[in-house]
């Protein structure tokens, strides 16, 4: 039962397929676009086309890239031999903002989620293994999310990689800066205690 003229309904349907957008929002966004100036809507349409035409995945690390390789893989100043493993390309941005890491990345394109049927085969794990020798990797930092899926992914990778004689580390997950101790749940607090470090007595 088509509720609206074809093109309008098509756009509502397409919007509704985007993550986090329900039928109500899809309708709202579509009518917003309908009302807004033609050039605004065209800019959006062109931006979508440009992304699909010009952006692909880096052939080495699966970050987003405008070329064969991403900006980081193309940067000679980046240290080779150290790889930071993340779930999604957007996680690279978060790690880069810290300015604490100068190696290369590897984007798994997800995390292990057995209930949803995502196993190791669905992630870019084979490709990670192939890089170890190619790039003479000595150290891997597992920077997956501190939730059940991310932790399971990190454990799986650690089990796979540790026997190969590499240094495999996991980011410490602990208390958020700015949070109050009394609000910390026991799991977070326990992990924070495990990841504790010496502090100078000035």
């Amino acid at each position, binding site marked *: 039962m088509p509720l609206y003229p074809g093109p309008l309904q098509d756009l509502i349907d397409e919007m509704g397929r985007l*993550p*986090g957008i329900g039928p109500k929002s899809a309708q709202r966004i579509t009518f917003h676009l309908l009302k807004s100036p033609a050039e605004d809507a065209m800019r959006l349409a062109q931006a979508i086309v440009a992304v699909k035409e010009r952006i692909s995945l880096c052939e080495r690390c699966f970050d987003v890239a405008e070329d064969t390789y991403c900006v980081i893989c193309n940067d000679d100043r980046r240290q080779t031999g150290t790889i930071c493993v993340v779930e999604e390309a957007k996680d690279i941005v978060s790690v880069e903002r810290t300015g604490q890491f100068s190696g290369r990345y590897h984007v798994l394109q997800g995390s*292990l989620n*057995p*209930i*949803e*049927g*995502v*196993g*190791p*085969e669905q992630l870019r794990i084979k490709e990670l293994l192939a890089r170890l020798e190619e790039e003479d990797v000595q150290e891997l930092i597992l920077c997956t999310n*501190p*939730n*059940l899926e991310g*932790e*399971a992914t990190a*454990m*799986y990778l650690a*089990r796979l990689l540790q026997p190969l004689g590499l240094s495999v580390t996991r980011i410490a997950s602990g208390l*958020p800066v*700015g*949070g109050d101790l009394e*609000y*910390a*749940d*026991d*799991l*977070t607090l*326990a992990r924070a205690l495990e990841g504790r470090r010496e502090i100078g007595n000035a």
Partner: protein
Amino acid sequence: MSLFRDRGVVLRTMRLGEADRIVTLLTESHGKVRAVAKGVRRTKSKFGSRLEPLSHVALLGWQGRGDLDIVNQVEVIDTFRAVREDLDRIGAGLSMLEVVDQVAQEQHANPALYRMLVGALGALAQANSPMVSPAFFLKVLVLEGTAPYLDGCVSCGEEDEALLVAFDLLEGGVLCRSCRRGRPLSPEALVLMRRTLGGGLAGVLGEPRSPLTDEVMTVATEAMEIHLDRRLRSVRSGTLA
């Protein structure tokens, strides 16, 4: 909107919008509950890791008018930390959550299922026993009223254990040599399944992993899949173990 209090195990979470999650829990008195946890994905969220799958929590929530409730406060009863920090046990734990998610119904209290799940996760946290999840699957079948018949051939009544060689949940249980259908079943696996359902669970959980426990796991998984009419993804994709 009315406030409700309950205890439950987090079965599944799904991203919602920018920083929220929809959390599915099996509660003690409200059956399966789907509730929105606002801001839970922010690293400063007051919910922290409390609303991760496998967590056993006490929650205070708003009962929504639609099908979604809203989480207001959460206290941890048990995170089953030993389970979530061991890949094998995560796999076993998630497979039980998947089964419960399929079997439990919204607005339909199932305190027995809740108690079984909490008990099974507790057992798994105690020891990495390969029999926890198959025993759980078999016990859920009993609870669902589809207990497999193990005392004799479901077709002809043959009780000689030496002759009971096959298992088929569609037929209702074990089958003898002349009536055999379904999958083959070793006499040792039959004994282990009988002990599981016949009050010998504590001993069964002490079984170390072996081809025998693997066989019971396969039989129990297939039986559960037939009952649910659906593959158990966490077991099948579970190259985790």
